[in-house]
């Protein structure tokens, strides 16, 4: 027992990722943690998307299942699991069966290189960004297979649209990423890096997030990536592969029950994955904001209190809503439940104030907060932008984003040369 505690402690204070330390057990724990965290994030995202969209359209959204519809995602999950699993009679069985698996695998595998902190990643690869882009580009295969195997017209058209769209936007996305890789090479040795942790460390040592580097070049590259990543994940306003007014549900029209829920899971975790690429490359990954402007131990302390304060704020929101619940006896259980949820959040918040926890967790907190910002943007886009027409989509991809990203790449290379010669 003593030895076990010592073993766990030795890895809690480790300064390497489990992959670099070559520790299988700890890597497995990290994978489980990331998987659980992602599932919770997808559930939360499901609820938040409905709520926020509803409030944007002056509705209430889910209100019935649990207080403020908090249990709605769980009810949905149970409904999906109990649904009958239908396969079209003329469908290609094996391909139909494999398609959701490939999409889910591609969406989850990329998370082994996502750096939640300098040591909080399953492993750090020499080809980190390339790995993420490559594996997430495999998900288009799953989409195409799903559309073709359904042996139905709407899914086939949806799959054709999605493959054309994803291949087109991958080009602009890749070129935007390359301009960041160029920026990482502006150091004493003149060698850049593709590793996700290395890119954040380059931003740390250069003392600037790459979105502000060579203003406005970094900002434009970020903008290109931010547009392309919405198209890559088939989300509004680029959700033509599943445009419900034209193609019912696009490539997953024929899927139901558990298989459909796999597509759903993959879509949201792919959104989180591309957002975390954007956060890592341009927004400084796990670094806290204003780390060079407001530096010093006092500011470090102030910023390290943020995780706890966030949870306490959420707890306060819960208590406020508890007080505003209807006083009818019918709502008694819901009121108690909401208060209990608030207490749990508050306790988590208090634990986050403890010094060792605080030091260990703030990297993860800043990373997650930035990703959460992107998630909100996704919902916001969906609530505000009308859907593009397909020819407009292609025009934007090839005639606007691609030349822009090429120009940014050349200018970034020039600026890098100019400044390194100046030194």
């Amino acid at each position, binding site marked *: 027992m003593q030895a076990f505690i010592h073993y766990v402690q030795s890895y809690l204070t480790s300064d390497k990722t489990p992959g670099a330390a070559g520790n299988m057990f700890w890597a497995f724990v990290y994978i489980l943690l990331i998987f659980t965290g992602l599932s919770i994030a997808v559930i939360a995202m499901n609820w938040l998307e409905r709520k926020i969209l509803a409030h944007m359209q002056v509705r209430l959204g889910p209100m019935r299942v649990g207080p403020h519809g908090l249990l709605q995602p769980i009810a949905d999950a149970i409904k999906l699991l109990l649904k009958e699993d239908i396969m079209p009679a003329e469908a*290609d069985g094996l391909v139909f069966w494999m398609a959701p698996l490939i999409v889910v695998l591609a969406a989850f595998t990329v998370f082994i290189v996502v750096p939640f902190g300098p040591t909080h990643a399953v492993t750090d690869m*020499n080809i980190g960004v*390339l790995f993420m882009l*490559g594996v997430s*580009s495999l998900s288009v*295969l799953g989409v195409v297979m799903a559309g073709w195997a359904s042996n139905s017209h709407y899914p086939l058209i949806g799959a054709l649209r999605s*493959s*054309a769209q994803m*291949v087109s936007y991958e080009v602009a996305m890749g070129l935007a990423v390359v301009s960041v890789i160029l920026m990482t090479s502006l150091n004493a040795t003149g060698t850049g890096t*593709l590793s996700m942790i290395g890119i954040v460390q380059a931003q740390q040592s250069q003392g600037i997030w790459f979105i502000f580097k060579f203003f406005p070049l970094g900002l434009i590259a970020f903008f290109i990536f931010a547009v392309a990543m919405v198209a890559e994940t088939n989300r509004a306003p680029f959700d033509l592969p599943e445009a419900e007014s034209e193609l019912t549900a696009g490539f997953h029209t024929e899927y139901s029950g558990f298989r459909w829920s796999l597509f759903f899971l993959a879509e949201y975790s792919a959104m989180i994955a591309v957002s975390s690429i954007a956060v890592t490359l341009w927004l400084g990954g796990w670094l806290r904001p204003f780390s060079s402007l407001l530096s010093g131990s006092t500011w470090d302390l102030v910023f390290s209190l943020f995780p706890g304060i966030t949870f306490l704020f959420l707890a306060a929101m819960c208590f406020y809503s508890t007080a505003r619940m209807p006083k009818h006896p019918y709502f008694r259980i819901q009121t108690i439940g909401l208060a209990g949820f608030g207490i749990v959040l508050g306790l988590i918040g208090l634990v986050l104030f403890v010094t060792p926890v605080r030091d260990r967790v703030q990297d993860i907190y800043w990373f997650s907060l930035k990703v959460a910002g992107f998630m909100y943007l996704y919902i916001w886009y969906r609530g505000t932008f009308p859907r593009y027409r397909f020819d407009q989509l292609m025009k934007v991809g090839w005639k606007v984003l691609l030349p822009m990203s090429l120009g940014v790449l050349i200018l970034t290379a020039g600026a890098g040369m100019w400044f390194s010669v100046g030194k």
Partner: protein
Amino acid sequence: MTPVATPFFFYLLAGIMVIGGIMVITRKNAVHSALALIVTLLAQAALYLMLYAPFVAGVQIILYAGGIMVLFLFVIMLVSIERAAKERTFNKQWLVGLAAGLALGALFIGVYEKGKVIFPGRMTAGQEGQNTQALGTMLYGQYMFPFEIASLLLLVAIIGAVVMAKKRI
């Protein structure tokens, strides 16, 4: 950290590649052939990883499995599968095929036998973190000219495709 490059993995991946390659030419359904080709390409990427060449493996996945094969599938899906399934997959040229296959096999065996002398029996694995950098230095330093020639070739192909696809420019 023990290396993963054990003979077991090599034979596993090589087996997957061979089976995938055979499936590519024997499946009646073109989409199934394309999927088998993707499996082969992914196994090849894993072989590159075993050779401590992660950059090449990544490029293999992103270009072949994620890019080119998607375009393949894109085109194949537009072809009527029912009609294609009725057409003969093999022309009766087994004699020529057999001769070509035997010649190629003999060539491989010859290279293997001769190569025992030329190639070293064991390569020292390069440092794991340096692969991408070494490749970059080599491509843009020592092999700059061939690299540029290759990119020029691709440029010609792109312009040719545009000229052939568009009647009015």
